[in-house]
Structure formats: structure tokens, C-alpha cells
């Protein structure tokens, strides 16, 4: 099995995730794209773990899963808060920070 397999797949997923983050307007969809990015990073870590023959990558993958869960929880809570205040979760409406 080729080592690049995992890394290339991860890179493709990462870029798809990046596209999603940039292109999507709906906040929930942006969060989903972020999940794609995080998963591709996990795949990368496991690939490195395979190449190096130790399991540190597994440990970090688990940590990332935990952090991602926390991130989704907080992110969705924020989305709901935004929705309650504005009846909309369109990100381009949230431009109070405009310079």
C-alpha cells in the first residue's frame, strides 16, 4: 500500500472542505465543511502514524475527535443563538465587524 494514498485523499478532502467554508452561506453547512477539514487532518495523522510505526498519531486523532465534538457543540449553540436573535443563519448577514 502506498503511503501517498492517505495523504492525497486527505488533501482532496481538505480542499473540498476549504471550498465549502468559502462557498457556503448557511452556517450549519460551514460547520459541516469544517468537520471535513478536521477529518482529513485525522486521516493525515493516522497515515503518519503508519509510516513512523508508532501510535502517537492515534492519540492525537482521538484528541482531535474530542475537540471536534466540543467545537460542533459550541458552534451549533452559537448558530442557534444567532438564529434566535435574527431568524436567519446566513453568514453574509453577520457583517457587523465590517471595517
Amino acid at each position, binding site marked *: 500500500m502506498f503511503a501517498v494514498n492517505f495523504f492525497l485523499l486527505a488533501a482532496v478532502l481538505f480542499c473540498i472542505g*476549504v471550498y465549502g467554508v*468559502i462557498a457556503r452561506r448557511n452556517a450549519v453547512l460551514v460547520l459541516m465543511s469544517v468537520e471535513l477539514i478536521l477529518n482529513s487532518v485525522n486521516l493525515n495523522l493516522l497515515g503518519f502514524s503508519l509510516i513512523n510505526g508508532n501510535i502517537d498519531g492515534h492519540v492525537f486523532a482521538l484528541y482531535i475527535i474530542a475537540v471536534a465534538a466540543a467545537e460542533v457543540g459550541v458552534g451549533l449553540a452559537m448558530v442557534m443563538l444567532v438564529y434566535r436573535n435574527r431568524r436567519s443563519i446566513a453568514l*453574509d448577514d453577520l457583517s457587523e465587524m465590517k*471595517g
Partner: protein
Amino acid sequence: MLGATGWFLDNAWLIPIIPGVAFALIILIGKRLPMQGSELGVASMAASLVLSVGAAYQWIQRVDDAGGHSEAGTLGLIAGFGRSLTAAQEEGAAYVQPVIRSWTWWESGGASFGYGQHIDGLAVMMLFLVAFISLLVQIYSLEYVRGDRRYTHFFAAITLFSAGMLVMVLGENMIQVILGWEIMGLCSFLLIGHWWEDEANSTAALKAFLTVRVGDIGLLVGTSVLFFGANDWTQENLGTSGFTIQGLSAWALSGEASETVLLWGAVALFIACIGKSGQFPLHTWLPDAMAGPTPVSSLLHSSTMVVAGVFLVARLYPVFWEAFSIPDVSVNFIVVIAGITIVISALLAFVQDDIKKVLAYSTVSQLGYMMLGLGAGAWLPAVFHIFTHAFFKCCLFLCAGSVSHSGSHHSFDMKRDMGGLAKKMPITAGAWIVATLALAGVFPLSGFFSKDEIIDNVGHNGYEVFMYIALFGAFLTAGYMTRATYLTFFGEPRGAAAHASALEAAGAASGRAGASPQNDASGHVPSPGGAADPALEEGRASAGQVGVSPLEDRAVGGLSSEEDDPADPALHGELATAGLAHADHGDAEHHGPHESPKLILIPVCILAFFALTAGFTNAVAFGEDWEQFKEYVEPIAEASDLEAAGAAPRASDLEAAGAASVRSGSSILNDASSHSVSSPAPVQEEGGEEEHASGCGYTAPEEGGICFFPAVSHAEFEWSKAALSLIVVGIGLVGSWFVCVALYSKRSRSLVGLTQRLAPARWGYNFLWNKYYLDHLYEQRIIRSIAHPIARGANWVNQNVIDGVVNGLGIGGRKTGGWVYRNIDQRVVDGAVNASGAAAGGTGHALQPVQSGKVNQYGALLFGAAAVFAIVLVIVNV
């Protein structure tokens, strides 16, 4: 050889654990318990007390055994301190190894941080003291804060507070000491701000916390400095880290310590003590801390918190001893601070109206005595003063609380709401007077034996100037305490203290026929019947006796009949000066001054008893047989064998602690008469002024030997010297009293005709008038003519000199700032700033569209930029 440790000594670490656990339980389930958690607090303190007494008893046995005497000690006066034994010292007793156990807490970078216990005479004494005082204060609080809205929290905090002090006292290393120190800081914040709804209280809590924190920086710095200085030495010689108390002590006395490290470490630590123990520049938080409930003030000011600083100095005494060259100089940092503190705070006590603030300044002054003793090499008297001071100061505070609780409607203002309470509260008054005399240092009471010893030893060790300062302080102490006593318990009742009488007067004036004659007869505080009282008091006072029983007899009638006096809620609300959030007592039974309930009186009486007798545990005046403190608390400054000593701290068991003492030329005797004899054969010299030639703390220990405590010297007790301080105190007491009485009788004379002429129905008017006159006299005579100039001077120094320095710095800073502003700022800097500002503004405007506020665009920029930079990196690197 000596393994006579016992269960209590080995497990002394349980003592702080118990209140710690109790704290958690109170927080968790306290509110659901029948007594809302207070029973847990009291029970935990009682358990701690039992363990401490056991530890004290076993420590005494251990010391006896070390001295080669295993005869069973007879329990004497207090908690087994009454053992009479002198033989132990006759053949050069060995240094008694403290009972040290330690466990590793965590390790980092090669340094291990342990926790454990370091039990020696000092620790045992403090453990007993803290547990005892805390128990009494908690019992007192059961009644005092009854019905408070944060009753449970109060007990939780005060229990944790005691636990913090116990942790610190037990501390085997500096980390643990810091831990306990900080727990206390936190709890003091919680407790002082207990009634935080009142903004003054929360401000005071903040002030206390922040002021102490200023000093705490010193603690951290000092600990670090000493650690880095000592760690190598202790690891090599003792196998312990540079945090351990024992390691630091031995290192400081080893003669290998760097003078610079020692000096800066000690200065930093002492700054921490200045903050915690309210010494001169940082003493301001102590009087403000009176905002807390009285039991808190009492605990804070007697055995915990403020004593922590003194304790730290006593604990690490070798460090300070070496750093400040205590035996060789006649002035050093500690004694200067302490001397200033004694006088400044004693003078300030004269101008306080708040009874608790008088006591607060008194505490500051007494802490100054302790520091003075430590700074001047009088270790034992200073530690003994901690012991005795705890009893009488706690008693005074509890009496003040009792007065405010039952006598003055939660007011602490002596001039407005007190006076004449001796008749109404005889037991409180009696206890107060006993404690006052003890504080002043009158002969057979406890304060004499400690304070006089400090003064004596300070002079003996070559600090003559400070001896006279201390004597002056003793004079002032006697003076202000007499004033406080007079204002509170004698003279005419005022304000809330006279409240019941005022009610009656109103009743009589409005001609409420049925009740008025009866009331008049019974609640007769300033009534015609009471007109004779001043004369009586005067006579008694000038005769020098302070009797309780006659007052008690007289109070019975007034007390019982007032209980059933009909309450007048409206008038009550009007006159009550309480203003405290917890003033929720039933109106029916609190409408006038009366004696406090038993739960308040019992602790007060116990403390008064100890204030009376605690001095006999080290009554130097009566000969060696009475010097229990010296024998059991003071470590013997004897060089120990290095191997035995080195093995002991880590072994956590005490078999190795036998510490066969090195029979070398450096054997030092702690004899009552001869201080630090340097020859191997002890020669009883009559307090001769020989040179401190050698010995622990003077010369480095010999090869293979190790010292843990410097050979402090002891002054020979002489009645002639004691007489001097007694006379000074007597002048203070009697003089201050006579001033009061003279004014008082003069007022009476001018009033005799008036009260005779006026009808009894109009005595209320007279009372008000008298009150005004009394205040007037106090202002004119006592304060303005005697104390005011000096006290105002002290205040002036406080306000002008210190403020002046600060202001001067500020003005200087402002002027410099102005010049810099005009010349450098405006021209050079401003030009540059304006230019860069303009540039930034232009760039900002140019880049404004980028800040669209849209997350997606930011994401695109982020990732795009990352990709571009990655390409750049690749191109550069390939």
C-alpha cells in the same frame, strides 16, 4: 535511643485535614443539617483540639526522653505544659529532632515538592493554640451569627480558615507554608466581606486581600531565592529539597550560605510578614478588616492570619538570624519596622471611637512586640507572646462582640453607644478587665510574663534603644486600653447602651401612668438612684481594684426587670444604630443592654481564665521550674550528627531521629542563667556579658555536625528590671484612669445640682445633655490635651509624610512628564507618531474593503494566503 514518638505526633498531619474535610462537608450538605453545618465546624475543631493536645503531650514526653529522663510527666496547668523538669538540661541536652514526615507531591525538573509535617515545640504550641481558639470562636459564633443569612457559609469559611492556619503551622516545606498562607488570605477575604451587601465591607475585604497580596509577592520571591540558594546544599547534606524548613534552617546556619542570598531571601520573606502581620507600612488593612463579623476579627487577630507572619519568622528563624546578623548588631530591619509599628499603632489606638478598631491597633502594636522580640534575638519570649496574646486578645474581641451583640445594638462605637455597661454586663466586663490587664502586662497575668520578657531580652541583646521604645509602647498600651475600658464599661450609658432607659424616659415623660414608676425604679441607669454610681466607681477604681461581684449584684435587678419591658418597635427602629444586615433578633428581648447568652459567655470566660493563667507556663520570674516553654518549645541549639540528621527527614520515621549529638566544642546550653556558654563544661555564670564565641548561629558547625537552630540567649530575670516595666505600665493604667475619673467626677459635680433640681421625669433630657458634655470633655481633655497632639502627630506622619512622599513622587513625576511632553513628546515622538498614524490610516482606508465582515471572505483570504505562502516557501526552498 529515643523513638518515643507516638501516634499523635506521627499523625499530626490529620489536624488540618479534619477541618478541611469539614469545610467540604459544610459546603456540600451543611444547609440540610439540623444546625446548618455549624455542628460540623465545631466538631472538627474539637477533634483537631484533641489531636493537638495529644500531640503536645507526646512532644513533651519526647523532649523528656531526649533529655535522658523518662519519668512520667505530670500534667500541669494547661494541656500538659505544667511539667516540672529541669534536670534534662544539666548535661547539655541534644537537639530534639522534630517529627518530620513527608510525601512527594509532585516532581518537576528534578525538584520535588513534598507535603508533610514538621512537628516541633513551636508547631505543637501553635497547633494547640489555633485549634483551641478556633473552637472557642466557633462556639461563640453559634450564638453571635445566629440567624445570619449566610450562616452556613460563615462556618464553612471560618473552618477552612483554621485549616489554612493549621496547614501552615504544620508545614514541612515552604510550598506548604505558602499554601496555608494563601488559603488564609482567601478566607480572610471571604470572612471580612461576609456582609458584602454593605459596600464598606466589601471594600474592606478587598483592601485586606490586596494589601496582603502586596506582601505575598515577597513570600514567593523569598522562597524562590532561598530555594535556589539552598537546594544544592540541602540535597547534598540532608537529602531534602531547598524548600524544607529543616533544610533551610540547617543551610542558613551551616556557614556555607551566601550572605547575599540569605539577606535578599530574608528581606523578601519579611516583606511578606509585614503584609500579613500588619507591620508598619502595610498595617492599614487591619483596622479596616474590622468590617467582618466579630468572631472573625477575633480569630484573625489572635491566633491566625496576622500571627502567620510572626510565625513564619519564628519558623525560619535561622535564616533571619544569619541574614540580619541578629546577635551582632544593635539595629536591623526587623526591629526598626517593629519599633515603628509599636508606637505608631499604639498612638492611633487613642483616637479611635470604634472599640474594635482600638483592639485592631492594639493587635498591630502587639505584633510589633513579637517582631521586635524576634528581630532582637528574643525568640522564646516572642513565641511566648504569640501564645499569651492569643488568649487575651481573643477574649477582648469576643467581649467587644458580646457588648455589641447584647449591649449596644450591633454598634461598635464606644462614644455613641456604650458606657456604663459594667452594670448591665458584669461577666463580660469582668472578662474584659482581666484581659485588659493581661494585655497591659500587669504582674501575675499572662501578658506580663511574655511582654516583660521581650522588653528585657531586647535590652539584654544589645538593642537598648528599642527596649525603651517597647517600654514606651507598654505605657501607651496601658493608656489606651484603660480609655477603651472606661468608655465602654464605665461612665454614663450612651446611645444604644442607654436605649432602654431612653424608652423609659419617653414613657415617663408622656405620663404613661401604669408602667412608668415601675420602669423607672428598675431600669435606672442614669436615674437618680444611679447618681451615686459614679462616686462608687471612682472610689473602687482609684483603689486599684476592679471588682466584678459588686457590679454583678447591682445588675441583677436591672437585668431581670428589663426583660419584660414592653417593646416599642417604632422607637426601637428609630434608635437602633445597627444598620447591619443581620440585625434580625426578636425585638422583644433585645430592647436594652443585657448580659449575653451562655454560648457567648462561656468562651469569653474560658479565655479570660487563660489570659489570667497562661503566663505561668513560662513564668521566668519564678525560676527555672516554671520555664516550661523554654524547655519544650525552644529547640536546643545543639549541633547534630550529620548522618542521623540527614537520615531523619526522608526516613519519615523517627527511629533515626535520635540524633546522637556531636560532643564537640560547640555544645551549647540553654540555661536560664548563662546565655550561650561556649565552653563544653557549662559554667553557671550570673548572666555574664561574655562574648558569643561559638556555637550554632555564631560559628559554622564542625565537620559532620549540623545545626538547626541558633543559640539564642536569654536574659536573666531580675525583679529590678521587671519593676521598671511594671511601674511604667502602672503609670499608664492609673494615669489614664485618673484622667478619666477626674473628668468624670468634675462632670458629676457640675451636674449634681442639676439632677437634684430636676424632676425624675426629666432625667432623659439630662442624660442627653450629659452625653454631649461627656463627649465634649473627652475631646477637650483626654484627647486634645494628652493624646491628641501625639496621636495627631502620628496621624500627621501617616497623612503627610507618607502621603507627602507619594505626592512628592507624583508631583515630581508630573513635572518631569510635563517637560518630556513639551520637548520630546510634542516634537520628536509626536511627529513620528503622526506620520505613522497617517500612514496607517491610509493603509487602513485602502484595505477597508477587505474587512467585509463576511466570514467566507475571511476564510478565502486565510486559505488563499496560506496556499500562496506555501508556494513561496516551496519555491524558495527548492
